[in-house]
């Protein structure tokens, strides 16, 4: 132990914290061109149309004046701006501590240390990218924040857990979420389950009272946590021994960073992490060995014979398709994927809880070519952790399957395989790219291109129909004009990161949203299909973009877009306040059709239909205003783009979140009255959210 302890004392000692502190006010990396474009957009703004209600005339004027007068750089640089005083003398304002976070010193680790500090130090060394939490689990969250890990406190543990999930899904880096024992932890259950379905390497942390108080019902909030996450985690442990905190932190990161990822749930009793858990020196810890010794970065590589067999099968195929999924993103295999696809001339369709690991702009992209999926005679499933069953991907009935996955135990599940390759996705794609001969699938690629064109034409037809409904905002208008704004206007198409959610609205926006680089879209409802985490997802995506972590690094800063419905908004709306206080400029588009997405099926049931309805014309925009954000209420198709432009301007200039409350109507889902009505999907590709 002496030698090991000695080496790890130095490992800890060499940790340098300087300059790694939480910097929520970091200056954006906007170019002068961005600045000009945003100014041009500002000048282009016209007064609202008569159909678009002016939410707060005096505030708008104030904002406009402030934006033009104060200048872009000062505002974008994070100068504190109090919101307009809704009540004289009582402005919504960020308290001083928010301005002081980045200047606060980072605590340097040293023994003696509590279990909480030791755990935080491992997280720090492992590069834990962020913490999303609500108060509770104080010893751990304080230690993490004090260690310099960017930390965010929100309004609901479930939403903050969703924020962490989305953060990971667009960065590829591990983040943590935390809640207090009992209620705080159980608030997170739905979000943990969603993260598990997405195979998100999410570190779930929660306090759990004291060991000596077990089963006494003394005080409040007692409960056994690990059984509650049974089936929705990769690994879990109740940590009760202070000498083993470091060891179990190692367990956690071993699971988070190797193989097929998934949530890891640790709950801590106070004896292990609190004041009484102080450890005098490294030699008092069990299993105190460092990152290079408690886990490995080694990855399984493919058997060359399997690669040869796969290439033989590919050569026989007329219409092969690579389905690039979750594992491609987490293994950062996008360059290898592109190299292999281009060399073998194989189209690629994406699936998974995030999008962008194969650009939709690439000539080989089949993600927006649903009509081509029926022709596929060989599917190469790469990193498809959440497996469809036969028939869920509508490939040709004689389609053969190659599956590439790091987990041999999963290959052959759901779909019988012709060839299974146990490998890290990146290693397998590199091997395939290296050994593949140049191939020619010109006819097939032309078929994919024709399918892409037909899909866009159909989307355009939906838009024309949507524009013809003038008394409310149709989802085809939102999806098309949002896409035009993001990809065909002044913005660089790859710049904006999206939290794509919603139920009915999502069926339209997914058809139009495109991803041009890794992590550009967080596919909100993926697999678990929970309604409501979307504002939390927007927060997580916004923080990822703000910090420029992982896959977001080249695109750091700037507004992000969130999409949700009126039903979903209610679950996590208060995180608008979290975005406002941390200056995360998320623009949340709320599709407000006065109903749950399920309404149409029950509309003819007088005693049941009401359960699917809300009051009509609710003002979600005003909720945003009341929480320190900005709100727009759009009631006609012509109002959407101008409202989006105003929100964008405010997001850029003030770093303020906003809500665009798009007033639709529930009857838009009735196809016979308002075609095209509720839409479905074909997977894999842009519409996919089941797998």
């Amino acid at each position: 132990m002496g030698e090991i302890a000695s080496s790890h004392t130095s490992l800890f000692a060499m940790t340098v914290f300087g300059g790694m502190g939480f910097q929520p006010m970091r200056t954006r990396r906007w170019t002068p061109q961005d600045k000009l474009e945003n100014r041009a957009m500002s000048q282009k703004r016209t007064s609202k149309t008569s159909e678009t209600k002016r939410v707060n005339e005096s505030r708008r004027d104030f904002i406009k004046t402030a934006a033009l007068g104060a200048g872009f750089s000062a505002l974008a640089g994070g100068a504190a701006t109090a919101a307009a005083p809704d009540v004289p003398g009582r402005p919504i304002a960020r308290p001083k501590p928010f301005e002081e976070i980045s200047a606060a010193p980072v605590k340097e680790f040293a023994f003696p240390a509590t279990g909480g500090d030791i755990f935080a130090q491992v997280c720090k060394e492992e590069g834990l990218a962020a913490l999303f939490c609500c108060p509770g689990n104080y010893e751990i969250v304080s230690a993490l924040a004090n260690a310099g890990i960017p930390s965010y406190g929100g309004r609901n543990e479930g939403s903050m857990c969703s924020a962490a999930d989305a953060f990971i899904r667009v960065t590829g880096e591990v983040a943590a979420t935390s809640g207090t024992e009992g209620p705080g932890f159980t608030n997170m259950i739905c979000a943990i389950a969603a993260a598990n379905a997405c195979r998100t390497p999410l570190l779930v942390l929660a306090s759990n009272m004291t060991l000596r108080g077990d089963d006494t019902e003394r005080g409040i909030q007692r409960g056994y946590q690990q059984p509650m996450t049974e089936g929705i985690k990769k690994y879990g442990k109740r940590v009760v021994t202070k000498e083993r905190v470091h060891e179990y932190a190692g367990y956690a990161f071993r699971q988070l960073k190797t193989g097929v990822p998934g949530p890891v749930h640790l709950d801590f009793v106070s004896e292990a992490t609190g004041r009484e858990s102080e450890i005098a020196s490294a030699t008092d810890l069990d299993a105190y060995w460092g990152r290079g010794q408690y886990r490995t970065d080694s990855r399984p590589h493919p058997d060359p014979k399997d690669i040869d067999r796969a290439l033989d099968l590919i050569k026989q195929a007329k219409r092969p398709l690579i389905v690039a999924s979750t594992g491609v993103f987490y293994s950062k295999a996008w360059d290898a994927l592109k190299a292999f696809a281009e060399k073998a001339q194989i189209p690629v369709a994406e699936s998974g809880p995030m999008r962008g690991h194969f650009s939709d702009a690439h000539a080989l992209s089949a993600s927006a070519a649903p009509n081509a999926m029926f022709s596929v005679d060989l599917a190469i499933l790469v990193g498809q952790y959440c497996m469809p069953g036969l028939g869920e991907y509508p490939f040709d009935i004689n389609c053969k399957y190659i599956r590439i996955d790091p987990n041999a135990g999963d290959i052959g599940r759901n779909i019988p395989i012709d060839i299974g390759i146990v490998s890290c996705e990146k290693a397998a794609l590199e091997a395939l790219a290296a050994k593949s001969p140049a191939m020619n699938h010109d006819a097939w690629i032309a078929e994919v291109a024709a399918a892409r064109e037909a899909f866009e034409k159909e989307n355009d037809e939906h838009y024309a129909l949507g524009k013809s409904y003038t008394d409310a905002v149709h989802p085809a208008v939102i999806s098309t004009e949002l896409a035009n704004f993001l990809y065909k206007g002044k913005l660089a198409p790859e710049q904006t990161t999206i939290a794509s959610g919603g139920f009915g609205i999502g069926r339209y926006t997914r058809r139009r949203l495109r991803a041009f680089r890794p992590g550009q879209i967080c596919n909100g409802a993926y697999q678990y299909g929970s309604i409501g985490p979307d504002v939390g997802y927007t927060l997580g995506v916004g923080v990822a973009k703000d910090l420029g972590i992982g896959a977001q690094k080249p695109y750091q800063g700037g507004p992000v877009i969130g999409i949700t419905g009126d039903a979903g908004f209610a679950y996590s709306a208060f995180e608008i306040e979290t975005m406002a206080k941390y200056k995360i400029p998320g623009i949340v588009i709320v599709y407000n059709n006065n109903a749950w997405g399920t309404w149409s099926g029950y509309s003819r049931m007088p005693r049941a239909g009401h359960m699917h309805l809300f009051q009509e014309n609710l003002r979600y925009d005003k909720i945003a205003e009341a929480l320190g954000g900005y709100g727009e209420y759009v009631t006609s198709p012509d109002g959407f783009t101008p409202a989006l432009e105003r929100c964008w301007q405010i997001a850029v200039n003030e770093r303020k979140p906003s809500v665009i409350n798009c007033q639709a109507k529930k009857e838009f889902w009735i196809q016979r009255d308002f075609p095209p009505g509720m839409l479905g999907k074909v997977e894999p590709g842009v519409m996919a959210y089941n797998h």
Partner: protein
Amino acid sequence: MKQQPGNTRNDDRQVAAVRDLLHAYATRGVLREFEERSMRNSKTEYQFTWLLDRRFHLIFDPGASQLTLRDLLPGIPTNSPLDLAVREFVAARTSKQLLAHRRIDPAKATLTVSHSRSALSFVFTVKRNQYAYAVPKLLNFCNELFAFLDMYHIQYLWEHMGVPEE
């Protein structure tokens, strides 16, 4: 399989051909819970679980060289918008605009729709015993039909096919 009166050796060969083709898909796991049942007039019914975990009923009439997906789509009134949409979809399957691997070649098989008790059945009439062509074509047609419904008529799947709304 129990032999029925009137079976000819040619019928037997056709039944065996269709059975072998379907059985290959069952063996591969594409079609599940595969069953075969003899019917009157030399007909054979194949049942299997497939898309949307539904039970499919495929009737083979060797005398008429017909494969019928019986009552595949329930709850569609005659001349309803969905009835018309499905018929339009079916008609388009033989369009020369479709690529050869997607098209149903009228020289090898024809596809018609029949309506009974608000349920649509689909009849594949196979020409010159080209079952090796027709059986996968029929299954691929089903695949595309269900995807068509999923894409454009999801509420029908919710209401009549047991697809969960979430």
